[in-house]
């Protein structure tokens, strides 16, 4: 699965895009976030419970219990501030 980071998530984690392989028990958005938090360090800090983040799966906003699969494009970013 391709993971994309934007804005302060990108700068904090120090990565704009990475590829991960989903274990069989990772089936929801929340599972993916847990998997990333387990990497610890900047990941754990950036994705902590106190952080306000948004998730898009295949370029649509997604909720924590939405399903994910290996081929998805998974993006993590802060609330948007354009306009």
């Amino acid at each position, binding site marked *: 699965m391709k993971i*994309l980071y*934007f*804005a*302060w998530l*990108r*700068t904090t984690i120090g990565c704009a895009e990475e590829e991960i392989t989903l274990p069989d028990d990772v089936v929801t958005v929340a599972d993916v976030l847990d998997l990333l938090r387990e990497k610890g360090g900047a990941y754990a800090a950036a994705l902590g419970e106190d952080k*306000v983040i948004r998730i*898009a799966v295949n*370029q*649509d*906003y997604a909720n924590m219990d939405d399903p994910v699969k290996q081929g998805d494009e998974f*993006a993590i*970013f*802060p*609330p*948007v*501030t*354009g*306009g």
Partner: protein
Amino acid sequence: MIRVQAENFDVGAEINALSNGNTAIGGICSFVGLVRDFQHTKDDATRVSAMTLEHYPGMTEKKLQEIEEIARNRWPLEDVLIIHRYGRMEPGENIVLVVTASAHRKAAFEACEFLMDYLKTKAPFWKLEEDEKGEGSWVDAREADDAAAQKWDPSAGS
């Protein structure tokens, strides 16, 4: 029509082009957002010397197209134009342009304000502001913007 681009745009030329020749149009409403020279996210205003808009290529175009479609279904619009820039900009430069054309004044006004409110909360753009020392800070999302977008939700109470 939507456009996501790094280059600046000419507000006047865009509006003039939209109205040209369609005599069913009774009113054209437009809104252009510009880079201000002060930061609005802190209590004490700090001078902003530049701003960089990061975006999510692909999702941005998708969301802007969806937003245009929602507006066209909701109001009788003759034409719609949304242009949003990304990249580095200095104070006074254009960031975003929304233009709506309709036979009716109220439809043009409402659709234009709706589009601005919606793209402020749905379109994946993030502002990084630079102060005079060149230090960048990510702009926080404003609750007022969420509230503004929320008012267009027909399922929300009045």
